[in-house]
């Protein structure tokens, strides 16, 4: 065999090797640095193929850009006791307050995505420990203008309802909370709108006449559950013509068909396995029932775990979204948050490298002036800030599912997600200090701890009036 050999002399992997093997490194860069080099050396993959393709070139360039951030501290952040940059809390708060604010005219292309900017910013702020109740009134009336008379939310006034916008709107209202926020949602119209999205094959479209993918299935389940809407399809739902009577009809089977030969989950049957869609699929199943029951019933779990685990990039520590793609901070959540659900279903913990992801987020995903990024060299945005922080929370906290489903909230249908418990912090090989702690996040809904329960309990037993 000669195809796989030592890396060529120009590769970042070799640079790593040379740096960390040299005896004089301590004199030059000090002990703090050598800790990192020792770590990076330990997790760097020793095997590398000679065959060069566009993918390997992109991979090399990416690692070249990231390594300085893993080896050192080019942003000159204050360091924690593990010699990693501290969570730049104040800077991120300032950044997210800005993304919640006003935008200039050239930002018109985000007109249809405004609900997302509210959700990402609000969720990110609460993850950083901020109280967002001061935004309650403004959140309510911003979404009042975006609510469609036929049910659901659009990106803004006069826009057609869309499940992504509706998902972001409902979660934002859940985050600020309060009866006024909850009751601003037209539940009856919402029920009809969701009924309209249900398709003959069991899945959901995102909008009337729009695309059908697994985001639709997840968003629909999130909304049905949080608002405690009836599982029965409304009388005018088109899929009744195909024999459906419930939102759940053929849904588990449809999600099951999205798991592909690699073990991951795709947007729709036949497509490539992808991190964001994997979380949507697992989230959907974890609302339909207890993860122990639904994940094991509808998915090949060993294969799924194998694929999820393969997403962790070495030596970067962060996750990629697909096989042979690059590390990206948003998958800190899309993949990172899958683990709590998978661990609940498998009954085993400690399946993944929390510490490596935490290192990637703190060292490589924090932007110098605030906000978090895909990878060094990219600009920060609300999306990558929210999902890096959710991922950081996933590295720090342990959640378990209460199979007995005790507690007063979530007794009825789609009540499973109200039975998660927090089992404290993950301490083993941690790379963070107390000051780097991100707040608790609901493992399925990705909203602050307790907020989903408050909303559900507000609607429980109310029926659709």
């Amino acid at each position, binding site marked *: *065999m000669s*195809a*796989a050999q030592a890396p060529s002399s120009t590769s970042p992997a070799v640079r790593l090797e040379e740096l960390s093997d040299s005896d004089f490194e301590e004199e030059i860069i000090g002990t703090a640095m050598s800790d990192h080099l020792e770590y990076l050396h330990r*997790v760097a*993959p020793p*095997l*590398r*193929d000679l*065959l060069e*393709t*566009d*993918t390997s070139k992109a991979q090399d360039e990416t690692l070249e850009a990231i390594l300085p951030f893993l080896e050192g501290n080019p942003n000159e952040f204050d360091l924690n006791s593990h010699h990693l940059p501290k969570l730049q809390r104040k800077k991120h708060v300032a950044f997210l307050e800005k*993304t919640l*604010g*006003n*935008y*200039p*005219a050239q*930002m*018109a*292309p*985000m*007109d*249809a*995505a405004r609900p997302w900017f*509210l959700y990402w*910013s609000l969720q990110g702020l609460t993850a950083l420990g901020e109280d967002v109740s001061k*935004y309650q*009134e*403004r959140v309510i*009336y*911003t979404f*009042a203008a975006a609510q469609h008379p036929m049910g659901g939310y*659009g990106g803004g*006034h*006069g826009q*057609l309802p*869309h499940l992504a916008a509706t998902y972001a709107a409902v979660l934002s209202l859940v985050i600020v909370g309060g009866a006024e926020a909850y009751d601003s949602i037209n539940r009856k119209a919402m029920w009809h709108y969701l009924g309209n999205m249900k398709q003959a094959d069991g899945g959901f479209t995102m909008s009337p006449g729009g*695309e059908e993918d697994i985001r639709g299935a997840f968003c629909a389940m999130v909304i049905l559950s949080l608002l405690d809407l009836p599982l029965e399809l409304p009388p005018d739902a088109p899929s009744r013509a195909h024999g459906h009577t419930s939102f759940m009809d053929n849904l588990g089977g449809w999600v099951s068909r999205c798991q*592909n*030969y*690699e073990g991951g989950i795709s947007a729709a049957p*036949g*497509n*490539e396995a*992808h991190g964001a869609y994997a979380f949507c699929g697992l989230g959907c199943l974890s609302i339909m029932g207890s993860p122990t029951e639904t994940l094991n019933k509808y998915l090949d779990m*060993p294969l799924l775990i194998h694929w999820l685990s*393969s997403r*962790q*990039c*070495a030596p970067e*520590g962060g996750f990629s979204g697909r*096989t*042979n*793609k690059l590390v990206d901070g948003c998958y800190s959540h899309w993949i990172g948050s899958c683990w709590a659900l998978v661990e609940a279903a498998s009954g*085993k913990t*400690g*399946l*993944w*490298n929390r510490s490596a992801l935490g290192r990637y987020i703190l060292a490589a995903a924090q932007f110098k002036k605030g906000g978090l990024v895909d990878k060094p060299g990219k600009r920060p945005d609300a999306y990558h800030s929210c999902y890096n922080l959710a991922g950081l929370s996933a590295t720090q906290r342990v959640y378990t599912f209460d199979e007995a489903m005790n507690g007063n909230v979530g007794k009825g249908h789609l009540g499973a997600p109200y039975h998660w418990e927090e089992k404290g912090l993950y301490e083993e090989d941690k790379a963070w200090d107390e000051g780097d702690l991100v707040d608790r996040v609901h493992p399925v809904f990705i909203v602050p701890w307790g907020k989903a329960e408050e909303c559900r309990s507000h609607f429980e037993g109310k029926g659709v009036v």
Partner: protein
Amino acid sequence: MPILYGANPTWADVTPVPQEDGGPHPLAAIAYAEEYSEAMGYLRAVMAANEYSQRVLGLTEHIISLNPAHYTVWLYRAKVLDQIGANLADEISWLNPTALQHLKNYQIWHHRQTIIDKLGSPEGEGPFISTMLEQDSKNYHVWSYRQWLVKRFDLFDEAELAWTESMIEADARNNSAWNHRWFLVVGRKGGQALEESIVDREIQYAKAAIRKAPQNQSPWNYLGGVVRRAQLPASSLKDFVLEFADLDEPDKVFSSHALDLLADIYTQDEDKKDEARKALDLLAVKYDPIRAHYWNYRKGLLDSSPAAQQIA
């Protein structure tokens, strides 16, 4: 301030519906340019009146040029095209440059799908997709669209397979291309059994790709998938796997994926649990240490029921 529409007599019969923000300080508010704001006011008005006309088609084109990520405009445009019986071939020609500028846009691809579906012909779509993939060879929307096209027009043929091979040839690490191959060869079969000759061909194809770059996970995943789908035992790959990872030569492992599969082969053999453990240890300690937690988890499963252990 009337700019394009307010001063135009052909729009005199329409009263624009101004943007409603819900309150004095809406969040994530955009200071819309007058041009955009005015056009959206007219769009809201014609949508409320369910107007489907040539002038509305022009209006949607105008708004799309200002904001191509506006799903409402795309969905309404599709409806207008349908209602006025517009020439759909013209629509595709108009769409091409727009799509090239906005590769990651969901709406454009869905719109294209709607139009091509109605046109009833995939003519010209192959070359167009190739142009798109030249810019971004792993674009998820483009590949998903191609799969829809293949299914819609029953293009599961030799030409499509040859094109897919050329994509894998260009970059054997393009996992989207591998997934497309699976879609063509295995996906079309639904639940039906695969012919033995096809199974052999696919196994040989994946093996050849692995020999060129043993650390490339795409063909390993493909190979494992085919073997599972054909209900062959993982042990049928043992000789091949040993070319890249042999426990007798633990310092000469050429592929962590081979070691992974070897661990799985040993796991399924009651008498080889120690070998499985050794392979997983090598992965955890030496060949894939970032995933040490996972390899140790697999090791923990060795003592539990056989059903929980299989990967490939």
